[in-house]
């Protein structure tokens, strides 16, 4: 992938994770599965990058984490949105919509 696209991808990944967590705390695997299923496996997201994004957003205090018990009674690290995370989500969603709209506008003029 070209370097220029990385920013876009990075921002998009953050956006997807934040959106996923609006339905409540999840562990990393659940986030990955949810994104894969919701996009019908069309977005190929490397899970390593996903975990990196989770930890980085925790460091930025958009997310909080805590160890808890998973549905099959195993120890798992759960992430949940913070107020700052919600704010980021709103801002990024707006930005993305604007961006997508602009791209479409260009494509449609041809």
């Amino acid at each position: 992938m070209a370097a220029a696209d990385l920013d876009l991808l990075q921002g998009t990944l953050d956006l997807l994770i934040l959106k996923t967590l609006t339905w409540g705390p999840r562990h990393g695997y659940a986030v990955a599965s949810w994104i894969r299923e919701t996009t019908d496996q069309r977005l190929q997201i490397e899970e390593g990058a996903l975990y990196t994004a989770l930890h980085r957003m925790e460091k930025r205090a958009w997310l909080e984490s805590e160890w808890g018990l998973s549905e099959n009674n195993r120890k798992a690290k759960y992430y949940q949105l913070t107020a700052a995370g919600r704010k980021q989500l709103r801002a990024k969603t707006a930005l993305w919509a604007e961006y997508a709209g602009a791209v479409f506008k260009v494509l449609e003029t041809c």
Partner: protein
Amino acid sequence: MSRIPGLKRLVRIERDGAGIDRAVDDELQFHFDMTMRDLLANGMSADDARREAQRRFGDVTATRERLATIDRSLVGRERRAAWWGAFTQDFRYAVRGLRLKPGFAVAVILTLGLGIGANATMFGIVDRLLFRPPTFLAAPALASRIYLVRDNAGKPFTSDYTGYQRYADLRQWTSSFELMTPFYINTKPFGTGEATKDLKVGISGADLWKMFDIHPVAGRFFTAEEDTPPMGQRVVVLSYGLWQTEFGGRRDVIGAKIDLGPDKYTVIGVAPTGFNGLGTTPVAAFIPTSAASSQANGGRKQTWYTTYNMNWFPIFAQRKPSVSVQTASADLSAAYQRSYAAQIAINPQTTPIATAHPRAYAGPVLRDRGPDESNSAKVATWLVGVAGIVLLIACANVANLLLARALKRRREIAVRIALGVSRSRLLMQLVTESLILAALGGITGLAIAQWGGTIMRRALLSDTDLPSALSDGRVLLFCFGLTVITGLLTGLAPAVHAAREDVASALKAGAREGTVQRSRLRAGLLIGQAALSVVLLVGAGLFVRSLVNVQHVRLGFDADRILSVDLSDRGVKLDSAQQVSLHQRLLERAQSLPGVEHATRNLTVPFWSDYEWELHVAGIDSVSKLGNFDLQAGTPDFFATMGTRIIRGRGIRAEDRAGAPRVMVVSEAMAKKIWPNDDPIGKCVRMGADTNPCISVVGVAEDVRRGKLSEVDLHYYLSIAQFQPTDGGLFIRTTGPADAQQERIRRALQRVMPGVSYVTVTPMSTIIGGETKSWRLGAIMFTIFGGLALLLAAIGLYSVVAYTVVQRTHEMGVRVALGAQSRDVISLILREGLKVVIPGVALGAIVALFAGKWIAPLLFDVSPKDTSVLVTVVVTLIAVAVAASWVPALRASRVDPNEALRAD
């Protein structure tokens, strides 16, 4: 986090490095296990599932590392945030506690403020006198002042004053130094006419500028070529201050000519602000040595730059970086010996090398660190120790107050421990509290130092360039360090005390159970305070008595009523007849002025100048072996002007004019020295040679002190008409205090002066003021510090006794109920107070007696074991102790037994 529904908290996030790695591994392990489980559930084979999981994840090792790095920085930040949170919590808690007890807080802050302020003030002074290298010095470690030592009658005599030829020799014959320059400060008149004023002028060689890290603000500095004997160039570098005040900071001043001393100087540059050369006093302008000295007369057949007989400046030098002080000193000694040999070749009567043992060394730049340490510097050094003691007392006091508070808060602290507040956290809280108090005390202290420094500068050390506390980085740093130390010192005792608290017993005990707590630590602190106060007050008493003695010592003249008038010809050439007539006109003018009682011409001024002449008396081999005999000369009103009493015979009269039989008046000490068993009146003294005509002694005057306050001089007086000196000035006796008339008389006399020549008028009391400075400094500062110590000790004692009374309310109630009279209760409490004060006073008295011998050389006519001082101090301290215990004792005697027993 506990908001997450249905989530059971299992483990805390790991805080250490290994824990972080483990947590990352756990998280990823879970992820892989789940992926495998789902893929296997979809019917994939184990191998395929593992491969698929790997593919989906990407580079596991790199990710693992990345995650751990992110988490580590997150944990670090959280830990800092937690610390900061705890700190702000402690801070708020402490501030709240202090605001509940504003009286306590103010007492502590003021106590510490006074202690820190006293120390900062003294530090500023001593730092300037003894420690701080001159501002801008490029290599302070390499710079030194050169001290010359020779033996005089078997005893080493050290001096840093020397002359130009010696300087030239040392410069030429040493190889250890990169730079060498004379540096001295001279007062020179600046301007003309009535606007003439005196400036402090720094005089040096061109190397001076290279010793400093400075650049001219305008123009340039002078060069070695401009400082070449015999004349040099009359060029001047202005100080920044003079440039601003006299020339408005204008750049076109470069090239202008200014009147300085007898000559006109061309301004070539301006030095940066704050530059004072190598001295500690402010300097207004800088000129080359050769230009400044060109008027000096070297004596017979020699010039000022070839003679070895005049010494008028110290030499400063900068070593080459590779040369040690020892090597440089050896090099200097060798050069000095060579120079000394050259001196003997010119003056064969010089003491031979074998007896004089000339040697030299490179010593401290600041004179007060060398062998010629001034009395003021010695006293200031003492005062640093004294200020330290005051701070110790202040700390003891604050520790005591905090301890009392900690005891009062015993139950509160026990409850907090019981509720699970960790002891280390509790310690932190208490230390935070004392650090806040210390910080506020430090700020108060700085304000006091700023104020104290101004007073010291104005009243006591006017000739020292003392920076103000707030603008001095070193004083600020010192204050900060002191504050931290004070905070820890005062906080530690109560904190340790509180942390050792036994929770159960503190909780069980009622308030009255605390009575058993009679802290040995607190009594020890009080004893120490009392002892230190005694030591300081004894010091104060000794200095005050010295000062009183100094001020009341009979000088042999009435200093308060006398003005000394000095004449400067500033290049106006007068022959001796014109000189005499000028002096005569000045004298007549002075005598005609209102407010002038008497006036006389003089030859020398006490403490400023002296004059010696070879004397011959029949029957005595060598008069000079008996001591130094100082010569003074005056007109008929001389003794009336000075207030010097004639004990026998007569003074100088109008008929003792030129041509009349020559007369002499001798001082009592001189009469006793020369004619111990004889009447001096009518004796014959010959001056210069034993073939010269007789001068007959016509009177004996009372003794005078004119070189040192502690010694009377051997002194004699001639009629000025029969001596005809070309120099000298006037003494004027005013009707009231002399300093009030100074300016008026100066203006009146200035009008008599021809051309640009001018007069300077100085009150005699100012001249003597310089001599009494060290005692004044000692008396004032010891008294301030001693008073401060006494006040602090009294507050400390009061608070402890008052606290004990509160604690023993119950006991007092019982006593009163059992029939104790209020008198009994009062005496009981007073005895409590005295029980700690008396051992303290005794200890202090012993220390004061022992330490006395160290300050003996600084005293004037007082024994360091002076009983009246010691007794006064002891009585004062005990009286203060009684007074401090009286109020709480009275309160104890008024305890209502009903209430006291019902409480609890």
